[in-house]
């Protein structure tokens, strides 16, 4: 499982997002254990303090929790929480960028809607 770190955002945020993605994709089901700090650190060659910081973000948001003496587990209801969080971010992360780019390329709103429909159709056919 690869993480490609970019320079744009702090590493610990990218770690948190990677774990969130994995949870949403079902790779870490609820109430199962996620890799330990050491495993993250060694496998992705990042400082453990950084890995810890990333995981702590998720702890604060209630996405994962710590079982003493055992490790970190995905909380019940994490998937739902994440979907809601991502929905809120959807507008900022995707829609605005889409609209900006469309405007830059002078694609009209109707054309964008057509493209969206094409996109949804495509998904089902695959």
């Amino acid at each position, binding site marked *: 499982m690869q993480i490609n770190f970019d320079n744009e955002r702090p590493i610990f945020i990218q770690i948190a997002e990677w774990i969130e993605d994995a949870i949403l994709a079902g790779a870490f089901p609820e109430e199962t254990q996620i890799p330990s700090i*050491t495993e993250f650190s060694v496998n992705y060659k990042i400082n453990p303090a950084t890995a810890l910081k990333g995981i702590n973000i998720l702890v604060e948001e209630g996405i994962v929790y710590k079982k003493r003496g055992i490790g970190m587990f995905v909380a019940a209801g994490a998937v739902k929480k994440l979907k809601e969080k991502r929905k809120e971010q959807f507008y900022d992360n995707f829609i605005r960028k889409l609209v900006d780019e469309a405007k830059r390329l002078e694609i009209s709103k109707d054309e964008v809607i057509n493209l969206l429909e094409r996109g949804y159709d495509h998904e089902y056919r695959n």
Partner: protein
Amino acid sequence: MSIEIRKISKSYGNIFALDQVSFTFEEDKIYGLLGRNGAGKTTLLNIITNRIFPDTGEVLIDGIPVKENDDALKKVYMMSENNFYPAGMKIKEIYRWTKEFYPDFDTEYANKLADMFELSLNKTVKSLSTGYNSIFKIIIALSVNTPYVFLDEPVLGLDANHRDMFYRLLLEKYSESPSTYVLSTHLIEEVSNVIEHIIILKKGKIIKDESREDLMSYGYAVSGKASLVDEFIIDKNVIGIDSIGGLKSAYIMGQVPKGNLPEGLEISKMDLQKLFIKLTDN
């Protein structure tokens, strides 16, 4: 519990190898001591480990002055390019004597690492290649279990596989039993994610002493048409400029500006190596 460097100066002739250097190595952190060749890193490390003496200033380990003090010195171990081990000694003998001088040396772990690196313990120091010379010293550094471990250019001569192995082993070791590790190197990108705190030396002076996150969070590059860039950077702390034709990139230390940029300008973050280069360029 820390190593305090207080106003260390060292000059050779008219040149200041180190000029009033002061900072602290805290416990259980991985540090990057970065600097160009000749910046003074090795001189500083040699002073901390009592191999050479400063002109002025002092180094305190957990409150005890290092100079000629065995109680302080037994808390540090340094591996460096220098070969101070007897040329004719076998590696397993070196392990044995290291254990004698550093009682917390984990021989079993060292043997395991030797296996992993495919290092034969019966070889003598002088029969090792540059790479394996570094390897046997890295193994000792990882097995010695002192509160402070210094690694001066640890991956000299190591192939990519061994370098990768080293960083993983370091992180694993650090996670399981933390100590303070100081990686002194000019290979910036490799160590960038491994280190927690950065100290940058330039011509004998400390120019940066911050956590990697802080340092990275306020460095960015702004690029676009030259005239636009010039206008933008008027009130900024510019540490370097690249230009090609009519396009310019300016490297800035400061908070990334929020809100909308003027049209035609793009902002990107700098990686540590770029940041380092711009900070230490002449």
